[in-house]
């Protein structure tokens, strides 16, 4: 136990320099953005004087090192500043928008796993056959389209032409009120409140954007599932099992699949963080009020606090996620316990 605690602590310490790096780089990057936010936010008919007032109010009249010190000080006190374009405290806004992004990403991953795992396993079992090739072509085609294009195509077909999908208007249609906030996941919150209608509404809104993202994440999951299955199927214990006369079905779905899951989980972690970063464009297409669309808007108008806050939040999330995967791995697989 002591060893494990120490391992977790050392992993956390290892993450600190990267986080510090993110803070510095994101600060430098935002200051390199073109344009003068004071001018932008002073509005359409601002005079020199009013621009100067805003510059002082934003602390932009200070030297860069001073600005950084102020930023770092605020950060240590848990203050991410105010976003100028939305007029809200960044921390509040991230807290409200993060669940939207997470709900979308997780739904997409669930959907993706539900399709990709069977595909990967089937491909591995029928290795080299036309099924294998078809699976590969299918998942590769999914990852070959830009997500914003897939999203718009899906809206066009399933909402505009067929009318099967609900209007792409964010997380809930007007007829529902958002459920009481517990987890921030609308579907979960509505179910917890026993409001099945709202849960259904929230779920319907999720279908198209989640499918768009899922299509994009099929490939890595299916590939890893296939590779891990192949490795598992060729391993000694499977051969032993075969020799012992166990049925093919049982071998594949019980022993091999279970052992193939470990690398798939690692891949899932990577895909998750990748997807969370990549759903920026999907959120924009579906008017999804997540942190990705927030970041895009903020970046285009040089909204320093919002961009920095977003990047930092994502970095912390990634680091935490990797940590969790590391720990899970350590707990599950005794071999990695002492590796450096």
């Amino acid at each position, binding site marked *: 136990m002591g060893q494990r605690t120490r391992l977790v602590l050392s992993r956390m310490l290892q993450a600190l320099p990267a986080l510090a790096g993110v803070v510095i780089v994101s600060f430098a990057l935002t200051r390199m953005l*073109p*344009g003068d936010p004071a*001018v932008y936010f*002073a509005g359409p008919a*601002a005079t020199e004087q009013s621009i100067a007032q*805003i510059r002082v109010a934003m602390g932009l009249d200070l030297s860069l090192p001073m600005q950084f010190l102020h930023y770092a000080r605020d950060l240590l006190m848990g203050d991410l500043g105010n976003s100028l374009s939305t*007029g809200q405290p960044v921390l509040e806004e991230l807290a409200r928008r993060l669940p939207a992004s997470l709900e979308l990403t997780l739904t997409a991953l669930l959907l993706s796993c539900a399709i990709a795992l069977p595909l990967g396993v089937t491909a591995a079992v029928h290795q080299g056959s036309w099924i294998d090739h078809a699976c590969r072509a299918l998942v590769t085609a999914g990852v070959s389209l830009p997500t914003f294009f897939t999203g718009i195509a899906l809206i066009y077909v399933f909402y505009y032409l067929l009318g099967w999908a609900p209007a792409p208007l964010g997380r809930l249609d007007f007829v529902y009120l958002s459920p009481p906030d517990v987890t921030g996941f609308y579907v979960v919150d509505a179910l917890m409140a026993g409001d099945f209608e709202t849960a259904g509404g929230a779920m319907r809104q999720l279908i198209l954007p989640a499918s768009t993202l899922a299509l994009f994440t099929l490939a890595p999951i299916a590939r890893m599932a296939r590779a891990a299955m192949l490795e598992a199927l060729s391993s000694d214990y499977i051969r032993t099992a075969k020799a012992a006369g166990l049925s093919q079905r049982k071998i594949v779905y019980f022993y091999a699949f279970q052992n193939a899951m470990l690398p798939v989980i690692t891949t899932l972690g990577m895909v998750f963080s990748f997807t969370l970063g990549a759903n920026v464009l999907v959120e924009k297409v579906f*008017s999804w009020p997540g942190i990705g*669309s*927030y970041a895009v808007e903020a970046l285009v108008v040089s909204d320093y606090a919002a961009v920095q806050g977003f990047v930092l939040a994502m970095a912390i999330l990634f680091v935490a996620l990797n940590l969790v995967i590391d720990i899970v791995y350590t707990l599950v697989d005794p071999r990695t316990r002492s590796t450096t």
Partner: protein
Amino acid sequence: MERRDFLKSTLAVSAATLPFLRSLPASAAPSGTIVVAMGQTINSLDLHRKGTNRPSYQVAVNVYDRLVSFGTKTTEDGGLYYDYSVIKPEVAESWDVTPDGKAIIFKLKPHGLFHDGSPITAHDVKWSFDRAVTLGGFPAVQMKAGSLESPDQFEVVDDLTFKVNLIRPSKLTLPDLAVPVPMIINSKVAKSKATTDDPWATEYLHTTPAGSGAYKVERWDPGQQLVYSANENWTSGPPPAVKRVIVREVPSPATRRALFERGDIQVNFDMPNKDSKELSGVEGLRIDSSAIENSIYCLNPNLAFEPFKDKRVRQAIAMAVPYEDVFQAAAYGRGIPMWGGSSATPSDIAWPQPFPYSTDLDKARALLAEAGYADGFDVPLSIALDQSDWMEPTALLIQENLNKIGIRTTIEKIPGANWRTASLVEKRLPLHLETFGGWLNYPCYYFFWAYQDGHLFNSSNYRNEEIETLTNETLHMEVDHPDYAPKIKRMIEIVWDEVPRIALFQPALNVGTRDMGGYEYWFHRQLDARKFKA
């Protein structure tokens, strides 16, 4: 001021304040919800706050009242259009200019009420106006345009009498009180939320309006939606017919169009010209395509750069623009052409009116050769990233034609945060597109912002001594003054000849509505739900 409107509104006021009407349950009212989709985001509920963006001005319109408002006229096809020529009461009941012409005295309606039920007094007006001129930024600039510059000018005579002392008599003062900026805030509520660091309660009013307008804010999910609910006791006009208005933010114009065509939204606010053109005449849809007053989309050569110092080069460019193609490809024929004027001298003071230029590449080449640029030159043509929907096709078409007369351009897309800095503040873009439109509908007002040296929208760095003098002389002069029209005509003639701004077309604001009525066009180009009918 229109007497009939005034009577109607007072009648409505007294009816709405009658106790038995107020006690009616909300469900008994003809209820209806209207869903509006717009592309931009509302970032504050307080117009005076620093950093509040344009789409947020609609909150000032729907949730707050002003002393006065503009009238309404009906267009040929039955649409509503605000009437600049009529100033009508809102919170004020009547007003008079003092005999010496140095002040305007406003009488407030005696029964005016804020949303919390407290009366609207002159103290609230004073506090709100003081706030508008003190907080700085855009509100102060807009107030200044109406010669409203300092809190000293605003005086409480008694609870229902408010006096504005004038720095100078100006035709701009009264209309400037009808723009969204001088909104009247419930000062009792605001003061109770003020702190020493924040004496004007900007943090509180940012998220919680304290107004007296036709609508209340039921909920605001920043970045997603704003929900208005009707103020049944509106004292400045008849209670709105539509009880609930949901404004949803839908960034993608394609999605907005799909929602609108499928009937999931009733209002598609500020739709692209192309959608406006294609959906016009479709059964069940109404498209209001209103030319935006006092606004021109222009191509500006910057006089701080060598080739453009020569008038003939600017004229050559004005003759090289493929106006018709631009109007069709960028505006899809929406708006009003601003080229092809027949005479070099204007016959009246209408503004904007077509400039006397047409596409004529041979003439353009000749002028260029005369100016010593027979071989042309290289210049970047700058456009704003967030307006690329019309700027990009326009720039591409202009680029192609300029290339034909030897002027080689590269198109620079400049992101939003930098656009204003580069084009308007630093004025360092050699050749660029510009979109200024004045809220107050006078030619002199346009000239003040766009042609006077050093002023914000004069991104061409243009300076002409005669224009400077004439603009200063006409800015505050009454329109019916005998000198006004001749002076304005002279100003127009000069800028036509010298073309520091090459007019392309007068843009249009396109708003689609279905299963409802009562959309009204306003100079501020923001949603006004007060006359909506379900």
